[in-house]
């Protein structure tokens, strides 16, 4: 599950999951939803991503920024994610397809994930929130 939360100029994204990994995956869906309807993005091409940071919150920002970079340089959108976290290391797959403007109607390019409203916590046993504001 994911949501967007209010920010005056940009957009707050929040992933909600049973585990930290699932919250990271859902935050990635929320990132895609800033640009287009994630349901409109088919899974035809799978890529691998690796990030590393000992600070779990900075690791979340690194993960989102790695996706921003891949979207920009591959001209792709992603809709399905699988994240594994081992200590400071994140290993993930992202699945998506090249941008098709007519079908995806991409609204706004995400420039990067910020440290504003950055938070990663288990708000109750079995419910993790992973969130930050992204610059659009």
């Amino acid at each position, binding site marked *: 599950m994911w949501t*967007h939360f209010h920010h005056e100029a940009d957009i707050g994204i929040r992933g909600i999951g049973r585990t930290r990994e699932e919250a990271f995956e859902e935050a990635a869906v929320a990132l895609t939803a800033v640009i287009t309807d994630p349901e409109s993005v088919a899974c035809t091409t799978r890529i691998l991503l690796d990030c590393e940071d000992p600070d779990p919150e900075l690791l979340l920002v690194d993960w989102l920024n790695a996706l921003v970079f891949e979207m*920009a340089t591959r001209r792709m959108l992603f809709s399905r994610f699988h994240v594994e976290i081992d200590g400071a290391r994140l290993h993930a797959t992202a699945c998506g397809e090249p941008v098709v*403007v007519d079908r995806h109607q*991409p609204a706004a*390019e995400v420039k990067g*994930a*910020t440290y504003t409203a950055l938070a990663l916590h288990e708000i109750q046993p079995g419910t993790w929130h992973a969130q930050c504001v992204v610059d659009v």
Partner: protein
Amino acid sequence: MDTSTLTRISDFEWRIEAQGDMHVPGIIFADAALVQAMDEKVREQVTRVACLPGIVRASYAMPDAHWGYGFPIGGVAAFDADAGGVVSGGGVGFDISCGVRALHTGLQRADIEAVKVRLADALYHAIPVGIGSHGSIHLDEAGMDAMLTGGAGWAVECGWGTAADLLRIEEQGCTAGARPEAVSVQARKRQRDEMGTLGSGNHYLELQEVDAIYDPDTAAAFGLRQGDVIISIHCGSRGLGHQIGTEFLKTMVIDAPRYGIALPDRELACAPIQSETGQTYLGAMRAAINCALANRQIITHLTRLVFADILPQADLTLIYDVSHNTCKVENHVIDGRARHLYVHRKGATRAFGPGHPDLPAAFRTSGQPVLIGGSMGTASHILAGNAGAERLSFSSACHGAGRAMSRRRAYKTWKGRQVTDRLFAEGIIIRSPSSRGVAEEAPGAYKDVDAVVDAAHRAGLARKVARLKPVVCIKG
């Protein structure tokens, strides 16, 4: 924002008194209605910027200030390197050197009426816009280095403009001190195919009509007449700037303890100007400024090609090109002493007044043009710098209207097609690859730009010269 906790200096100036860790007060330039409409987060961000090391005089918010990341958007702050001052990636923003370039066309509104749909379609096809688009220029490593060093001057050398263009760009189109070697492989990769692209979100290219002149003498100095057709280009340093902003925000967070900086919040990540991190960021940021200037120069060239085909009598010459996400080294007089300051303007426009030595000769008596962007259906404005603004705001003014509504709410409120049809009925042609993007950028999602500009004028930050009404808007 609750005004009861602010000290009212005048009808257009409000002070957050220095307290706690604040080294200087906060100053907000706006009328009561605009201040009341500002988010409390603006106060919080202005206050936190006032706590950064080496800040000089005050932490400022312009009339269009709104909640940003780190610094507010519409935030201005100057730092003294000799007093331990810092440079902040969040104080510049991800879209480094995003700005507005305005061009004369030598045409009047009646001249384009019969061909405005053709112009809209031709511009939309000639200028890559939106996500997934790319330009026809592909830079190799040597070309990338030359662009990052040369800015708009590099673009002119490549044949995309004239030497006369450079005289009407801040710093003559090239920022000194760029360090291409400080720009990462990733940032270069993001930019390789993006030269001459407009981007998305609130970026645009517009044909506009001068529909009001407030200061005839200055308008004449700027070459503006009632009914003139003007072209405005709003975009920045594209993927390269975004990547530099992303990378240095993290570097500055990690390095802050090493430099003895206790960040009140990670989003205020910064580094001493006189540090390796600070100097590397400044070198990369200046390279990104040159990228933005080159980008707007290439888009100008593409626009000229379209006009040469459809309206060959048009003569597209620059009015000015101003950036509104920057950190620039400037001399300012503080308590009677000239000081060398690093002035951050994030969503704020430099507004040098008459007599400033850095202005081109054409603007020495009038002050520089201050270009204020609107949204698709609303006006843009051209103001002029005031000499007195140096004392008020380090010669800074607002940059636009600022959002009044989140993107998500705008998308739920309007449909893109409705917005396009309504604006067409008002005589405004929209071309965009994204219906959702148009809905999110609907004019109703923005604050009243006229009120923001009135506040800037009455506060003395800059003076109103002319208002521009959109005729064609190419939206990313």
